């Protein structure tokens, strides 16, 4: 910051050197230097930059700026239009992240609900053990390592998908979206494979617990077809827990996305954050961390509200 001011002051002085009579009279370069230093110190003081970082003035200033989403400019990164504003950078990368991670989490959950409720009906088969095994395996396999393996498989051995997921066509050009989707396929498949086993496992667990309740058994005795019981009654009652699963899945991808985006070179926020950390681009890091946290808290809030909407038992307030 002080460096920026120094550059600014020097530039403005050298611009005005022909107009400013007083500056022209100074022949000695040392005298000029002292004037520049004086200007710098005046500006630093007026901006409050001479105080240490913990001074209340400085902290409240920067906190206020961040809270009002005035995140400043990045040092090294620009959008495709050439703007270096942190806000615009985030807005440019956010759709990509949402496109990849939200679609894959939702796919995982949908597969989980369909397969899980199907498997819940036929308990104790080999498929049960298979799903349980796959679920523990997917917990212990690092997702980013699995992505590397997928790149070796599909980009090197089979050569179906590109290894780098940044589209080659520049945004705005025709065919960009198709290219983006094509580049998205490999990370998408990877994330679905990583996620679906544990998703199926938990859905099965949740649905099984609901099915064992008395009222479902009663419905079976009344003579309703088992499919109708499953989809109309059991899934409805398992809804809140499934929602929790979805929310946890969504929030978990926010952190994990940094690694996966970095490996696939997907032009999303995680990749941006990683590059910002590597380049030590502090305004961008601060902005992204603030944004991550905001997104995280927002997801949890929405989750809690939806839960209380779905499950009236939560609403009563007392623990």
């Amino acid at each position: 910051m002080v460096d920026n001011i120094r550059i600014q002051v020097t530039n403005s002085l050298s611009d005005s050197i022909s107009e400013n009579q007083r500056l022209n009279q100074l022949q000695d370069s040392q005298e000029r230097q002292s004037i520049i230093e004086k200007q710098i110190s005046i500006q630093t003081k007026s901006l409050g930059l001479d105080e240490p970082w913990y001074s209340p003035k400085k902290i409240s200033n920067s906190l206020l700026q961040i809270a009002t989403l005035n995140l400043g400019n990045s040092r090294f990164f620009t959008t495709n239009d050439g703007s270096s504003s942190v806000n615009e950078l985030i807005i440019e990368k956010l759709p990509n992240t949402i496109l990849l991670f939200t679609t894959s989490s939702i796919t995982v959950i949908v597969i989980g609900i369909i397969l899980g409720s199907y498997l819940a009906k036929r308990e104790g088969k080999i498929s049960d053990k298979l799903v349980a095994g796959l679920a523990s395996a997917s917990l212990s396999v690092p997702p980013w390592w699995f992505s590397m393996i997928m790149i070796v498989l599909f980009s090197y051995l089979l050569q179906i998908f590109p290894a780098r997921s940044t589209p080659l066509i520049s945004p705005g050009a025709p065919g960009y979206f198709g290219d983006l989707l094509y580049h998205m396929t490999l990370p998408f498949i990877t994330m679905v494979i990583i996620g679906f086993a544990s998703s199926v496992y938990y859905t099965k667990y949740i649905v099984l617990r609901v099915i064992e309740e008395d009222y479902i058994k009663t419905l079976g005795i009344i003579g309703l077809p088992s499919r109708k019981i499953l989809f109309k009654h059991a899934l409805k009652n398992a809804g809140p827990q499934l929602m929790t699963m979805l929310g946890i899945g969504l929030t978990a991808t926010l952190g994990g996305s940094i690694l996966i985006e970095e490996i696939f070179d997907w032009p999303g926020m995680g990749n941006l954050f990683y590059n910002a950390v590597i380049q030590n681009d502090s305004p961008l890091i601060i902005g992204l961390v603030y944004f991550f946290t905001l997104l995280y808290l927002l997801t949890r809030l929405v989750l809690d509200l939806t839960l209380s909407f779905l499950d009236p038992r939560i609403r009563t307030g007392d623990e």
Partner: protein
Amino acid sequence: MGITIYTVLYIPAKERSEWNNPFFWINYPKNAAPAWVNYFLMPFQQQLPEHEIYSKNEAIVSSYSETDFKVDNHTFSYEFVYAQFPSGFSIPFSLEFGEIPPAVEITVKRPDGLEFVIYYNSLDSVPSVQNDIGSQLSNASNQQHELSQRVFSSSKEVIDSLIEYADLFNFSISDLPAEKIIFSETDSNIPLRGTYKFIFTTYSFDNDTILKELNLIIEGKVFGLLGTDEFRRDITFGIMIGTPVALLIGVAVASTATTIGLFYGLIAGYKGGKTGTLMVIIIDIFLSIPTMVLFIILSLNFGSSLLFLIGLFVLFGWPGLALINRTFSVQIKNYPYVEASKLMGESDFKVVLRHIIPQLVPFTLANFALAVPAAILAEAALSFLGFGDPSFPTWGQMLQDAHFSSAEILGYWWWILAPGLMISITSMAFILIGRSLEYRAKLSKKQ
């Protein structure tokens, strides 16, 4: 576990520091696949060349004297039966000589009878030759000079002398590396199988010349159990020295975090009331932080020593465990026998120690086993991003090296597969242990 014990016992700490030292690995091949790959390729007659190191003792020595100089021949015979070219060769030698420097010549005799002189150097010009790595001339006592040098297949001299044989080949050899010329058929650029003879000749003009060391290293495309990486490092070695570090991190983090979590949860649950609520709020604050982002920032700013990483994982590992323990201790607190012993006037401390902790121990053990893989995975992820402790090579760092050398695009699968598989197997083992402990704990609680 076996690997850990072996590693701790047999590999001294000094060798751990050699991991990042390129000279230690100079005799190893570059980007070699595991040796067992050849067993799969055998049915197709497609074996890859193996890595071979010949020492001075394996050479056949013949010497004769001319009128004013002496000739020493060291002949290595190399059986080449593979379907692909080796990835290079290097010939390190060290000589001791007196006043008059000897001349050195390397000749290759091919199976089809052709003979290439690939290197000739009269060593008086040696001090000016600096493009060979490891070239050094030291002044020993009584005018004895010692010279260690290493002839690489990629050296300029080798390539320059091979250009002179260009008209023997029916194709252009100008852009090919030396090993693809020497081991090639003359009609087309495919490997020529048979016995090759590498002859190392010294022409000495006095009796002081002694050949101290001589090796022939044919760099193969397969090596060892797990192959080697871009920096010629043996991946088996890396896996082995990574094991104790990973387990140390896992166990240290898990034991500290479970202990803190146990007592924190106990106090929060047992006390209840305002203190309990406050303690739960603190837990909630910790749990609502996106940890990965914070890990990256903290390790970027505060260095990346192993101890710091362990502390970091503990700091963000205990709140989840504390929450579980709190729930249990609230339950147990309300059991009749606990209340009875309270009524009998036992102190809080004694109640907790004698009635609540024994109930929690099985669950704590299960949590311990489940916390180990979490720490291992977190460490691997952080080192993969480049925030690991560079003085302790871990599996995550190996994967980071692989990623930065774009191993996944170049297809060096052995470099990626092994470390990740080790991470997975280790975490899987702990997860299974944890699950079974949890299961038993639940069973014993029901009874």
